[in-house]
């Protein structure tokens, strides 16, 4: 049995049970694991949302502040739009100023448009008699773009270091990768209804794809 330190025991506010040898009971270990799970890092949340969204979401909502979730979508779209600007700069269609402008536009898009879509989803959920709070819905929705953030970081590295054109290969793939977690997120929020989560994710995916394309053609 693994021995644990006292500071961790204090964290669970007196719920501890230690046997005569100073080891935790099985029940105690389960309780501590629960508390530890609740305190998962932002890094773990991002990768968890990408790989195992249904398992990560509940803990993520407890441990991640809403502004961190919004920051994730802000950064994800900042990097995605930034790569679009870089691609257009590399092909000589736009100047360097456009690269900065597109990165900034992406951040604004992720900070404002995505939470706004999250708000729209909340109103739809409200109409379907869901009792989810608006902050919780927006936070979950923004978190579903965690995969896009990971792809965005990889894309910008490949774009800057190797000179690749990455807006479609990494940027669009990242946004596509976010669709799966988004469906699961909406389904979790609606108590497991595919009839609502699939059409909503389809509409959001289409809106994001078209709005990005409009931006690229400006």
């Amino acid at each position: 049995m693994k021995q644990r330190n006292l500071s961790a025991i204090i964290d669970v506010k007196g719920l501890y049970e230690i046997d005569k040898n100073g080891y935790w009971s099985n029940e105690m270990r389960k309780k501590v694991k629960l508390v530890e799970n609740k305190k998962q890092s932002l890094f773990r949340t991002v990768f968890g949302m990408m790989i195992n969204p249904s398992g990560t979401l509940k803990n993520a909502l407890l441990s991640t502040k809403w502004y961190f979730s919004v920051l994730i979508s802000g950064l994800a779209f900042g990097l995605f739009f930034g790569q679009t600007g870089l691609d257009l700069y590399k092909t000589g269609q736009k100047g360097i100023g456009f690269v900065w402008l597109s990165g900034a536009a992406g951040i604004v898009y992720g900070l404002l448009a995505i939470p706004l879509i999250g708000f729209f989803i909340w109103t739809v959920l409200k109409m379907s008699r869901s009792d989810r709070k608006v902050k919780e819905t927006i936070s979950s929705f923004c978190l579903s773009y965690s995969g896009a953030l990971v792809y965005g970081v990889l894309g910008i590295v490949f774009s800057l270091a190797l000179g690749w054109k990455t807006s479609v290969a990494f940027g669009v793939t990242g946004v596509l990768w976010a669709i799966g977690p988004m469906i699961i997120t909406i389904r979790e929020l609606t108590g497991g209804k595919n009839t609502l989560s699939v059409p909503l994710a389809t509409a959001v995916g289409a809106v994001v794809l078209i709005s990005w394309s409009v931006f690229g053609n400006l």
Partner: protein
Amino acid sequence: MELDMNKGKGWRNLVRWLCFMVMGISAFANQLDTFSPYNVVFGAVVGLLFGWLFRKFLRGFLSLFNGKFKKEKGKEAIRYAVDSAMLFLTPFAAMMFIAVYYLNWSETRGFVATGIMAVGTAAAIEIGKAKEKQEFRNTIATSGVSFLFSFLWTLSYVYLAKVPSLMEGGAQLIRGILSGGGVSL
């Protein structure tokens, strides 16, 4: 409460068929003539065949890894999990259609690959829901099958994309012979 697995079965089948057809049609669309009947028919057939094979493999692997569960609940439970997961293709098929027919993109393999991977993840979640515990081996099985099929699509696409133009050429040749015009050299 016992889940009625037959409820919405028709809709699930229809959505799945439509998704694979739309993906096939969009993938093999001719950029110069987007609604060319040769490309549309070929794309729809390839999409449906690919979807049928993918579904068979997913069901087969999940049955293999969940023998006891299949014995207890029957093969309907596996089928329900896979068919529910297939609904995840809808956003990818819709976005692919928009990309090809509205944004005029020609590169669509990413849509198919990510869509298929999303179905794999969803199938593992669905079977976990039915068993009331998520198992890593199911995630590995479904991700493995999905990866295999996304690789198969990416690889075969290069060769299959040439088929509609060959079909069109062959049809024109036959039409020419039948109309008595012969073969123009």
